[in-house]
């Protein structure tokens, strides 16, 4: 036991002797501490290494496809690796559309739920709601996929049909093959669409954004909050002038974190959509594709160039989500509430 605790008691100087020499404040780190330093630093660097390795190895595997396709990889819609024409423009558009639908639906709900938890709910409801939202984040994505496929889709088809019938003149609500005059149009033109997939992904995005927003709103200074009330503000008045401005960084950051999650969601999207690689913004129409869905459905059918193409698609997805996540944490840390925020 070379490192047993040794307590050094301060020596009491005799009053008659000269003043004690200044103590050396440099701490000499023993053998145990050196090992400790090495091990913890190594674990921290290991995380960096994993992140670097993701980028590095995806790039290595993607090189073949990217050098073959060049810039056309970003402009081609088809994915026919056998004929050498493949690109991710349609797939990327599908990914982004699903994420936009998800974030558009999830952001108001998560903002409302976060404000409900911090401002409206009595204490016992508050703790239950926090637990429920955390549980919502822990539900596996495959379960959301099953739920969306077997329960939600049947409910949503009616809404899609209604949107198409009354707002079909807006381009994004247009559906090829659906006749607004005929209410008995086959329901299958409305299933497996960006809209349904986006709604399911919204259920997964909601808790992530909600947790960040709740943490930010719970840090609103009590003084400002009570000041607003003392000036005669209603609850909404307080939220509008105190809570929302204070939590702006958290709202933006939480939404962007959710966007990152929505872009990368795989299994729920695969279960719902029917793959189709065409450039279209018709969100209600059956058939779309996303980068991660493409990888999940094609990885064991492809080899050589095709597999390399999938890695290239994965690399693009990695780059986009990395950019969005860094931006999100930048927003959260730059905001007034962000210094002690956990996100």
């Amino acid at each position, binding site marked *: 036991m070379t490192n047993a605790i040794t307590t050094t008691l301060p020596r009491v100087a005799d009053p008659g002797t000269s003043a004690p020499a200044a103590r050396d404040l440099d701490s000499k780190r023993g053998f145990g501490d050196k090992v400790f330093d090495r091990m913890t630093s190594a674990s921290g660097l290991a*995380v960096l290494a*994993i992140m670097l390795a*993701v980028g590095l190895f995806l790039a290595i595997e993607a090189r073949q496809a990217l050098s073959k396709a060049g810039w056309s990889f970003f402009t081609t819609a088809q994915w026919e690796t056998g004929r050498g024409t493949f690109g991710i423009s349609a797939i990327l558009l599908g990914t982004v559309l699903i994420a936009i639908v998800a974030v558009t639906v999830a952001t108001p709900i998560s903002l409302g739920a976060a404000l409900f938890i911090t401002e409206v709910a009595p204490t016992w409801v508050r703790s239950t709601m926090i*637990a429920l939202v955390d549980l919502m984040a822990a539900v596996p994505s495959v379960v959301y996929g099953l*739920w969306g496929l077997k329960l939600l889709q049947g409910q949503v088809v009616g809404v899609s049909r*209604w949107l198409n019938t009354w707002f079909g003149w807006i381009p994004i609500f247009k559906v090829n093959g659906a006749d607004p005059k005929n209410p008995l149009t086959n329901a299958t033109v409305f299933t497996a669409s960006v809209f349904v997939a986006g709604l399911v992904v919204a259920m997964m995005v909601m808790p992530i954004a909600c947790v960040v927003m709740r943490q930010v709103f719970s840090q609103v200074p009590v003084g400002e909050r009570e000041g607003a009330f003392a000036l005669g503000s209603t609850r909404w008045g307080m939220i509008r002038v105190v809570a929302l401005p204070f939590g702006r960084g958290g709202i933006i950051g939480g939404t962007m974190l959710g966007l990152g999650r929505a872009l990368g969601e795989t*299994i729920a999207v695969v279960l719902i959509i029917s793959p189709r690689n065409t450039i279209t913004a018709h969100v209600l129409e059956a058939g779309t594709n996303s980068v991660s869905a493409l990888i999940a459905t094609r990885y064991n059918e492809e080899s050589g160039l095709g597999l390399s193409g999938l890695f290239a698609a994965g690399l693009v997805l990695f780059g986009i989500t990395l950019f969005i996540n860094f931006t999100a944490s930048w927003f959260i840390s730059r905001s007034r509430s962000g210094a002690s925020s956990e996100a």
Partner: protein
Amino acid sequence: MTSTLLADDPMMGLAPLPDPLFDRPDVHGVPMSSPAPSATIVPRRPPVSSPAQQRRAIRGWARNDVMMLSGALLSALSTTVLLFGRITPLSGQFGFAVVGFVVFLATYAVILSVTENRPAVIDRVVTVLLVGAALVAVIAVTSVVFFTLWRGKDALWRPNTYTSDMSQTGPNEGLDKGGIGHAIVGTLIVIALALVLTVPLGVACAVYLNEKATRVAGFVRTVVTAMTALPSIVAGLLILSTWIIILHHEYSGLAAAFAVSIVMLPIIIRAADVVLRLVPGNMREAAAALGAPQWRTVWHVVLPTARSGLTTSVILGVARGIGETAPVLLTAGFTNSINVDPLKGNMVTLPLTAYNLIKSPLPSQVARGFAAAAVLILLVLILFIIARVLGGRPVGQLSKRQARRAAARSLRDLARCEAHGRIAGVAVSSEVAS
């Protein structure tokens, strides 16, 4: 009644005249005339000139509020039924709920505006909106959980679901044959391996983030945050490219565990980092002041103090890792039979089985898929409840048993110190310590 009591009272004649300025305490049925010597005599306040103010109720619901709310609800319900059935061809409960909510908001606002001013109307309507948003979350999570359990119930109560695999069972056979035992075994093996990999690395990294306030540590923290939202399929791609394509290993449980670890690691680090940050600084300083080197401070003070929170963070990581499908899909392969060797041969986990079975057009396969999902969600629920129970206690607060153990440990340390004579010159005895 009082008069008989008064008549029996021997002190009656001695009772002092009532002082007009003092209230007589009339407690516990003691008659007014018998002064209780121990009771406090409360001075009567001079009468207030203004009439007594009634205490205003600032919380709760007035009758007016309840009437307006229920009136708006009723009106919205009937309007929606009318709208829905007669005017627009919308169908499904989902559409009904959305339209009903919008109509309710409008009706409520109109009813409120009869008596209230504008800010009050807006405040009430916004409150309803916030409650509505919370309700959506509650309905979503309960419907997800109960729908899965409900659809899986046919297979859930059969023991063969848990004990057998699908190797001897055709996809068309009923639920009394075959099961998802292979997926349960696979899930347990993959998660156990992932835990062995992530717990030491994750906790060590969290300690690193907390103990070293360097610029590198700050950068690592940012990277970890970004990694929590790493698409899980990208984690699968990394293991596919390195372990399987470049190093020529086969699809296996170990590869799946690697991929799942990449997903779990940032979650564990983030949660553990937050917990370690809550350890009071004076405990660290006390250890340092006693001359403990840093590694001993961490090992004997910081980590034990944060133990329950660290367990919670690991459990949250497990709950996430157990449900990951995409990384397992790319790295584990697929099999219908039980495989207990993570180094050789394909392996499946519960989410992957659910995903594969649910795509089948056969009803019995779909039912098995739902059973797999239901088992998965039950596992997540159990883990979640354990995490809640453990995480309910703030950092550094010990349970009774832990406090007893800690006291016993200090006594043992004291005995050891005395035996070594290290604390010579200071009068320390076991009596003082205990």
